């Protein structure tokens, strides 16, 4: 089949926030499914993909590429999002692109008018936060360190209590979440056009920090098939 006869259809997932987000599109968005799930992305994601496929009048056979938000964010959510995307990519032999969710959220917020140097802030566990500035790796900020780290920049607060960063930050956060599907899709489309595909099997979330009390990343350790 020629590419003209079968246009690209991108399936994108993001589970880094308290929402489970599924979208389908190519040049524009065709279907979006968004649910408030807190930490129960696993019970919703496949159902949402089915829902989005129906809305777009497509089946999984029509999907030509996959995109997944790699966080940082909810560990549980990201495990579900990445495990799902990696498995579909493997089982259906589809290219997979991982996009840092923070980058997509920033792009969505700036498209909505937020300043380019704004700080994106997300909860990291119960007390800490992830903070990202443009063109820098996200960092983990301990309680009390947030206002210093943000300085006099505008903050884009995702899932952060309004009492901590104020109403403006929350409003930018809501706009960023609204524009996330479009932003994720356009970043991914650029990557796919450039042939910038990830190794689906090896892909891991953007963790930012190692688990407490651990000196070495699990991902660094190789494996050999132990036949039992």
């Amino acid at each position, binding site marked *: 089949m020629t590419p003209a006869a079968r246009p690209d259809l991108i399936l994108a997932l993001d589970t880094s926030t308290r929402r489970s987000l599924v979208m389908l599109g190519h040049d524009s968005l065709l279907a979006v499914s968004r649910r408030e799930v807190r930490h*129960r992305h*696993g*019970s*919703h994601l*496949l*159902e949402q993909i*089915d829902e989005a496929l129906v809305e777009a009048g497509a089946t*999984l056979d029509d999907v030509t590429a996959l995109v997944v938000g790699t966080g940082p964010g909810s*560990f*549980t959510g990201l*495990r*579900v999002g*990445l*495990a*799902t995307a*990696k*498995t*579909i990519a*493997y*089982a*259906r032999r589809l290219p997979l692109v991982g996009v840092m969710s923070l980058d997509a959220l920033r792009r969505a917020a700036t498209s909505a008018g937020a300043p380019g140097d704004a700080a994106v802030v997300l909860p990291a566990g119960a007390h800490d936060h992830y903070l990202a500035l443009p063109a820098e790796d996200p960092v983990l900020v301990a309680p009390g360190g947030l206002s210093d780290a943000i300085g006099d920049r505008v903050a884009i607060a995702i899932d952060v209590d309004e009492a901590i960063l104020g109403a403006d930050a929350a409003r930018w956060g809501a706009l960023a979440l609204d524009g996330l599907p479009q932003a994720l899709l356009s970043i991914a489309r650029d990557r796919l056009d450039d042939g910038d595909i990830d190794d*689906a*099997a*090896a892909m*891991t*979330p953007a*963790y930012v920090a190692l*688990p407490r*009390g*651990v*000196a*070495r*990343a*699990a*991902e660094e*350790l190789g*494996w050999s*098939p*132990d*036949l*039992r």
Partner: protein
Amino acid sequence: MSSGRILAVESSCDETAVAVVEGGRRIVTSVVASQVQLHSATGGIVPEVAARAHLRWMIPVLDEARERAGIGDWSELDAVAVTEGPGLAGSLLVGITMAKTLAWSVGLPLVPVNHLEGHIYAAWLLDPDEDERPAPQFPLVALVVSGGHTFIVEMADHLSYRLLGQTVDDAAGEAFDKVGRLLGLSYPGGPAIMQAATGATAHDRRFPRAWMGDSYDFSFSGLKTAARHAVGEALGLPPNARDLDGADLPEAEVAELAWAFQESVVDVLATKTLRAARELGARTIIMGGGVAANGVLRDRIAEGARGLGVPLVVPRPGLCTDNAAMIGAAGYLRYHAGTRADRALDARPSLKLAV
């Protein structure tokens, strides 16, 4: 056409495993990516580390199993089976997500399996080149003993479980790990203690046994305390001293303590299992779980089983510890019994086998 082939996924603790099993018994391939190396650095399992490793290695393990089983098309399989619990929530979630996404995206039925029944069904497994052997006969008594579980069940038939007794505190394997650490031995404690105990010659130490009346229940916390006191005493420290380091003990002393500890655990496990088999008229005794790989325990129960005239089935060590082939064996029966899960399947970290 049915191939009788089940692809099984197991990720409840610290082993990422995928297997293909035919007809519920014959292993086509069984691949495990072990995290022992990872957890020996921290002296035990850190759940977040385990979950991250599962996510990193799940697809390479699946691909290895697919390739070794020679699966060209997913439709060569009857179903995908997966451990739904019990286990670590984050670890279970990764295997479940992979299994259900695979089943969903290639159109195969999804079969949820209890990890504990998997340990029992390991007794049905045949290696790829192994001769046929009769299946275990019912009614049977099964002892499952691992780092997370210690219990005895009776099975009157397939997939039917009556709990006879279980640990009221630590699992036996957990006690091995803790006492192993106390004795300055490496992680995991089971194999290290068994190895150290072979050096014992005096055999004059005795640790207590918790018989729990005439129930089939177990308790290992008192034994752990006794081991702690014995180590403190051997180090010449006052009672209740903290920060014991068995690495300072002479090797011969470690050997005697390891032997006495193992003897106490083995004595209780073997005695109760054999009593259950005798009282219930079992036609088979099954052992499963990582601690079942302990040769001293296996020999003790084998000796008693011979005395009773009841066959004992203990899977080889690689099938006693966590693996996916056992999930494939149990999954085959569940599949034919009509057990199915849908795409909303979630982890059940505290799932029970029976009440």
